[in-house]
């Protein structure tokens, strides 16, 4: 029989609502609250031997201490599996479930599982560390949550192979799992298109990354005094591409000194970019990285100065994650160098 310890908050233990959120962790023998439904779904394969109840505020305000105490409590029952929640869209509860499940996994080396709504802050924090079953956003989704959590929990406890997120119902954790689709790609694509045309629901197989939004920076007060830097995803590099920036799916960027360079020419610069016809950019790289005109503007006093270095990468098929990491790094240098504004050019 698989031994399970279950973690829930004060609300689901029926201790009380917000007014009881301060209670420290305590152990109850056997199952409690949502544990009843889980136990029912486990049938005779697993038994919830203990339930740990902890106030959400207590856990989040005393996280290190709470984790230590709870791990000691869990250890005593020598469980084969640890389940937390489900937390649905309750923020502090979600963070508590994720944090304690990860701690138990790391410290006691047993499989763990929790469940929550995908927008719960705990999901973003822990989905790559532990299995988190995707639930609805309120406790009305308990039945649905248990239906997905119980079988996955048993699989984890038995050490069985875990399928892809879409098969098992957990939140995608960035790991790829191979599996055979029942239908061929062409049929799936046409089915998807027909569903879309008929305004029916469909599930994309290639979700777009989440592009974040940033608040616009304030305007430059006096552009004639501003130090302006050039950054490009158009792949303009010194002739010969000294940093070997890849023509697609770039894994790096280059930083190049243009001190004294008045004009980019065919002899001195080129593009490293694949995916577009490079002839025009190679003949006159100013068509992508307009150093010539900015030098003119600098001389005429239309801008304060052109920054001594420009940064370049290739935007062709480059992962958003990579691009973001590049910018996080060189933005710090631009700020440290006193650059007031950046002109980004892309092809």
């Amino acid at each position: 029989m698989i031994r399970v310890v279950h973690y829930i908050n004060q609300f689901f233990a029926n201790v009380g609502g917000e007014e009881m959120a301060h209670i420290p962790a305590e152990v109850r023998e056997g199952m409690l609250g949502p544990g009843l439904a889980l136990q029912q779904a486990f049938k005779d394969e697993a038994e919830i031997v203990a339930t740990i109840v902890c106030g959400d505020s207590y856990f989040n305000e005393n996280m290190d201490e709470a984790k230590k105490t709870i791990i000691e409590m869990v250890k005593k029952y020598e469980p084969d599996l640890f389940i937390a929640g489900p937390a649905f869209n309750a923020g502090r509860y979600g963070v508590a479930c994720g944090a304690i499940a990860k701690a138990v996994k790391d410290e006691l080396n047993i499989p763990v599982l929790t469940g929550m709504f995908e927008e719960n802050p705990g999901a973003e924090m822990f989905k790559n560390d532990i299995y988190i079953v995707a639930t609805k956003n309120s406790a009305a989704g308990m039945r649905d949550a248990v239906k997905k959590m119980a079988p996955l929990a048993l699989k984890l406890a038995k050490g069985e192979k875990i399928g892809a997120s879409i098969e098992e119902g957990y939140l995608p954790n960035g790991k790829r799992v191979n599996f055979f689709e029942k239908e061929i790609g062409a049929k799936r694509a046409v089915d998807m298109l027909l569903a879309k045309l008929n305004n029916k629901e469909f599930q994309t197989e290639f979700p777009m990354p989440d592009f974040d939004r940033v608040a616009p920076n304030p305007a430059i007060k006096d552009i004639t005094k501003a130090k302006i830097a050039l950054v490009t995803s158009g792949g303009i590099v010194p002739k010969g591409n000294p940093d070997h920036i890849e023509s697609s799916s770039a894994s790096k960027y280059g930083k190049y000194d243009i001190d004294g360079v008045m004009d980019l020419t065919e002899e001195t610069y080129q593009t490293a970019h694949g995916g577009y016809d490079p002839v025009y950019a190679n003949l006159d790289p100013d068509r992508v990285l307009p150093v010539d005109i900015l030098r003119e503007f600098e001389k005429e006093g239309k801008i304060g100065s052109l920054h001594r270095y420009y940064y370049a990468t290739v935007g062709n098929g480059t992962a958003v994650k990579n691009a973001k990491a590049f910018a996080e790094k060189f933005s710090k240098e631009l700020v440290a160098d006193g650059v007031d504004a950046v002109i980004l050019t892309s092809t």
Partner: protein
Amino acid sequence: MCTIVPISLTVGANRIVPTIAIPHPLGNPSLTLEEEKNIRRELLTRALKALETEVSEQTVFEK
């Protein structure tokens, strides 16, 4: 400064200046060198204007 404005809008750029074409955003090889430079001057002047303009949301500087 980009040619495919919808992409810049999707990825979240806040000040956008539309350009000429993918392989030569700031130039046009069918024109003379001097005419091309004029285009580049005009586009960059617009970029400077964009940097000097307060915006509260994503803005495309068409003119």
